[in-house]
């Protein structure tokens, strides 16, 4: 099953009971009482997922490690490597 098929499968699992309630095929005292809430459910879920995603991405952006030490270390090691290579007879062209 591809990812797309998996998503469609879950969407169908949701859509069948949802549509049967919204279109009135299935009617109970519960569904009639909360019909508006049920109708809005997909929108609410979508908004919640959006907020969750935005939160995760922002959180991860702010906690994305900066590595100034790694950069500094690399600069020093480049100098070291240059010296080493020159000692071995390498000629830099710059």
């Amino acid at each position, binding site marked *: 099953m*591809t*990812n*797309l098929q998996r998503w469609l499968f879950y969407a169908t699992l949701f859509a069948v009971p949802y549509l049967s309630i919204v279109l009135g095929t299935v009617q109970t005292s519960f569904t009639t009482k909360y019909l508006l809430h049920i109708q809005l459910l997909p929108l609410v879920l979508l908004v919640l997922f959006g907020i969750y*995603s935005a939160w*995760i*991405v*922002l959180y*991860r*952006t702010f906690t*994305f*490690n*900066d*590595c*100034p030490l*790694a*950069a500094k270390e*690399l*600069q020093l090691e*480049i100098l070291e490597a240059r010296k080493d*290579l020159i000692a*071995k*007879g*390498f*000629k830099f*062209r710059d």
Partner: protein
Amino acid sequence: MKVSGYDYEVIVIDDGSPDGTLDVAKDLQKIYGEDIIVLRPRAGKLGLGTAYIHGIKHATGDFVIILDADLSHHPKFIPEFIKLQESGDYDIVSGTRYAGNGGVYGWDFKRKLISRGANYLSQVLLRPNASDLTGSFRLYKKPVLEKCISSCVSKGYVFQMEMLVRARQHNFTIAEVPITFVDRIYGTSKLGGTEIIQFAKNLLYLFATT
């Protein structure tokens, strides 16, 4: 590498880049020997995937480590890759900027946000078994690398992402080493509108087909 005691060879694939990469590699070959520095230049720009295939053909070892040669990938992590691979006989060990002590240097907020956003989207849509899909610092068992490449269809930098998606399809095991990524000291890296559109197109393609 010599100090760490691992048997190795460095294969340089150069697609006729105008910055004199090949000349430098030739000089290094004189110092380290032709069995350590292996030069396999090609005539013109033929793309990343075919460069990998070309390189594998000439690799004599059981494992292949791929890294960018502009020093944004530090070779100091290689022993960690090897130790981790040995500890669990993993098919692939992938460097990750997104987990543990991994990180980046030289990225502003916008770049980080795009990177994190793209990564989150790929995680949600593709369910890979790794946290860093677009990095290229990885160790592969040689036959695993061959198999992943042969099943890849995309080109350019999305290729790295597809490699791990294919790995998941083939049920290869993946382990991760946190790495620090110091963005190119030499040259400038590119991330523009066309790259983002390219990324989105390939992401959707992989979502629908894998």
